[in-house]
C-alpha cells in the first residue's frame, strides 16, 4: 500500500486577516478643551482660578517691562522722569557692548566675532549627514580650536608658538571644508591624491602620510601668508562679558567630560593606585563648594610657585573649574557605567577586545548615551556656576551687569541688567536642553 493506513485529518488553512490602520482621535479644539480643562465643576473652578492667578502675575510684569518701559534716554534720571513705574532699558542697551565683550577694545572686537564664527564653522560639519568620521572632527575641534582662539583673542607679536599652532588649526579647518566640498562634488580630495602618489613608494601608511603632508603644506602656506599680520596684544585682564563667560564655560564643559570619564574609569579600576587617586580627587572636590576651589586656586596656588612666575588668573580659574566639573562628571559617568549589564563586558572579552577597546567601542558609547540627560544637566548647571568667577574679580557677564548700577549715568539700575542677562542665560540653557532632547530622540531611533 502506498498511502498510510490512517489518513490524516484534513487541516484548515490559516490566512491572517489584513491589518487595519490605527484609529486616530478626531476631536476638535473645543472638544479637547472641554475634555481637559472643563470636564466637571471642580476642574472648571480650578482652571479659572489658575488662569486668573497667571493673569495677575504676568500683567504687571508685562506693563513694567514693555508697555510702561522707556526705550531711549541718556541717563536714569531721564528714565524716571518719562515713566517712573516702567523699566529703564536704555542703560542696558548702552552697555550692551560691555555685557557681550567686557572691556575688550572696540576696534579689536572683530577678533572675537571671527573666533566664535570659526568655532561654529568647525561644528557645522558635525550636523551634516554626508560627512564621515565625525568623531575625528569633534576631537580636532576640541584639541585644536583652543589654540586658534587663544591666538586670535590674545594676540601679541612675540608669541610665535601660538601663531604657528593657530595656523596648524586653521589649516585643518580649511582642509576640512575643502574635502567636504570636493567629496560633495565627486572629486578626489588632495589628501587622497597624495595617498596614491605616496603609495607608489611606500604602501603601508600611505593614507595617513598623504593627509599629514597636505596638512603640513597648507600650514606652511598659512604661516607665510599671515606673517606680516600682527594682532595687538589684548591682556586677559580686559577680557570680559558674555565672551569670557562662554570661554570659561565652553572650555570647562569640553574638558569636564574627558576628565570625568578618566576619573570614573579610575574609580572602577582594579589597580589600587588609580582607584585611590580617583576616589580621593572625586570625594575631596565634591565635598568643597566651587567658590572655595576658585579662591584656593587664585590665592593659594601662587604660593607654591616662585615669585618670578606670574600666573594668569584666567588659567587658574579654568583649571579650578575643570577639576570641579570633572569630579561631578565622574560620578555621572560612573552611574552610566554601572547600568551596563556584565554580559556586555563578557561578550567584549570573548570577542577578544582588550580593556581600552572594550571601553571605547562597547561600554562608554552605551553608558554615555544612557546618561545624556544627566550630562547635559551638569553642563547647564556648570554654565550657570561660572558666574561665580565674578566674585574673584573676573569681569564676566555677571560683574559687567552689576557694573551698570555703579555707572554714574545709571546709578542704582539693578533690576534691568539682571533681567537682561537672565534672558540671555535662558536662551543658552534652553537651547542646550533642547539639543539634548534632539540627541536622545535621534539615538533612540538607532536602537
Amino acid at each position, binding site marked *: 500500500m502506498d498511502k498510510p493506513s490512517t489518513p490524516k485529518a484534513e487541516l484548515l488553512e490559516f490566512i491572517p486577516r489584513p491589518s487595519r490602520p490605527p484609529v486616530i482621535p478626531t476631536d476638535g479644539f473645543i472638544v479637547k478643551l472641554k475634555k481637559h480643562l472643563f470636564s466637571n465643576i471642580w476642574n472648571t473652578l480650578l482652571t479659572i482660578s489658575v488662569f486668573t492667578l497667571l493673569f495677575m502675575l504676568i500683567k504687571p510684569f508685562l506693563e513694567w517691562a514693555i508697555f510702561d518701559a522707556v526705550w531711549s534716554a541718556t541717563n536714569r534720571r531721564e528714565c524716571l522722569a518719562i515713566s517712573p513705574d516702567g523699566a529703564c532699558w536704555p542703560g542696558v542697551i548702552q552697555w550692551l557692548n560691555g555685557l557681550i565683550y567686557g572691556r575688550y577694545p572696540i576696534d579689536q572686537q572683530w577678533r572675537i566675532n571671527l573666533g566664535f564664527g570659526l568655532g561654529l564653522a568647525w561644528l557645522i560639519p558635525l550636523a551634516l549627514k554626508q560627512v564621515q568620521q565625525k568623531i575625528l572632527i569633534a576631537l580636532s575641534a576640541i584639541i585644536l580650536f583652543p589654540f586658534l582662539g587663544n591666538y586670535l583673542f590674545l594676540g601679541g607679536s612675540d608669541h610665535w608658538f601660538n601663531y604657528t599652532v593657530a595656523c596648524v588649526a586653521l589649516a585643518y579647518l580649511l582642509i576640512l571644508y575643502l574635502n567636504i566640498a570636493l567629496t560633495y562634488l565627486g572629486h578626489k580630495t588632495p589628501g587622497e591624491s597624495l595617498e596614491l602618489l605616496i603609495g607608489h613608494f611606500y604602501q603601508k601608511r600611505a593614507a595617513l602620510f598623504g593627509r599629514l603632508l597636505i596638512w603640513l603644506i597648507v600650514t606652511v602656506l598659512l604661516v607665510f601668508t599671515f606673517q606680516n599680520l600682527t594682532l595687538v596684544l589684548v591682556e586677559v585682564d580686559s577680557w570680559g562679558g558674555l565672551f569670557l563667560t562662554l570661554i570659561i564655560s565652553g572650555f570647562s564643559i569640553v574638558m569636564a567630560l574627558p576628565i570625568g570619564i578618566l576619573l570614573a574609569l579610575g574609580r572602577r579600576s582594579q589597580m589600587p593606585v588609580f582607584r585611590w587617586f580617583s576616589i580621593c580627587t572625586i570625594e575631596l572636590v565634591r565635598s568643597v563648594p566651587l567658590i572655595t576651589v576658585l579662591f584656593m586656586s587664585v590665592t593659594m596656588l601662587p604660593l607654591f610657585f616662585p615669585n618670578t612666575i606670574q600666573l594668569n588668573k584666567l588659567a587658574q580659574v579654568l583649571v579650578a573649574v575643570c577639576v570641579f566639573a570633572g569630579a561631578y562628571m565622574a560620578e555621572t559617568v560612573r552611574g552610566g557605567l554601572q547600568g551596563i549589564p556584565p554580559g556586555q563586558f563578557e561578550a567584549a572579552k570573548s*570577542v577578544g*577586545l582588550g580593556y581600552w577597546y572594550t571601553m571605547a*567601542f562597547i561600554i562608554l558609547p552605551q553608558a554615555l548615551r544612557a546618561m545624556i540627560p544627566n550630562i547635559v544637566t551638569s553642563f547647564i548647571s556648570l554654565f550657570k556656576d561660572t558666574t561665580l568667577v565674578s566674585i574673584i574679580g573676573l569681569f564676566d557677564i555677571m560683574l559687567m551687569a552689576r557694573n551698570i548700577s555703579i555707572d554714574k549715568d545709571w546709578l542704582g539700575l539693578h533690576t534691568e541688567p539682571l533681567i537682561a542677562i537672565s534672558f540671555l542665560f535662558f536662551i543658552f540653557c534652553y537651547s542646550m536642553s533642547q539639543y539634548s532632547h534632539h540627541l536622545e530622540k535621534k539615538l533612540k531611533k538607532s*536602537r
Partner: protein
Amino acid sequence: MSDRRAIEISGLNKWFDDFHVLKDISLTVLEKEIIVVCGPSGSGKSTLIRCINHLENHQEGSISIFGEKLENDKKSADIIRTNIGMLFQNFNLFPHLTVLENCTLGPIWLRKIPELKAIEQSTTILDRVGIADLAAKYPGQISGGQKQRVAIARSLAMEPKIMLFDEPTSALDPEMIKEVLDVMIDLAKSGMTMICVTHEMQFAQQVADRVIFMAEGEIVEMGPPDQVLKNPKWDRTSQFLEHILTH
C-alpha cells in the same frame, strides 16, 4: 576528529568564596571533537566553559589550548582571542551597533583587516547563518533566534578554532530553537571543535562525539551519546535524563 589536543584540562578546582564549584575536573578535547555537557543547574557546567575562556579564574589545576598553558597574562589573552569563540544564553550582542558592525568590530580592530574586506567577509558569514538581509538592523529590532545567529556570526568573524556554547537555546521560543540548532549542526559538520552546554538531547544524539554529564561540580559520566544517554552507569544520570525526557 584528529589526534591533536585542542583543550587539555587537568585537576581543575574552583571555588566561589567557600563554595566548591568545580572538583578535580580533568578533560581532554581533541581537535574537531563535538562535546555536549549536560547536568542539573548549579552543577558547574557553565563555570567549566567560562574557565576555558578565562571569563572566570580558577584556583587550582591547569588549562591548555593547543598545548599552550593559560596564565593570567597578555599572551594567554591572545591565545584565547585567536582560538576560542563563545556564545551566551542571552546573546550579549552590542545593542548600539548594527548587526554588521557587531560582526566587523573584532576583525577591523583586532585582526586589522581593512574595513571593506571585513564587511565582505562578515556579509558572507551572515549569509552562511541565513541572516544577510538583517545586516543593517540593530539587535533590538530582530528576534531571539536571529540574535543568537548574529552572535554566532560575530564569533565566526574572528575565525576561531574552538567554539564554546553556554546554553545557546535556553532563552529562545520553541519555534526559534531549531533555526539556531541548524546553524550549530552545520558548524559541527564543518569541522569546528565545539563544547556545548545544552539540554537539547536530540542535538547531542545527532552530532556529539562525547556527552559529559556533570553534577555537584564533578564529571559523573562521559562517553559516546548512545552510552551516556541510553545506558548510563550512574543513578544520578538516569534520574536527570528521566526529568529531561519527560518534562
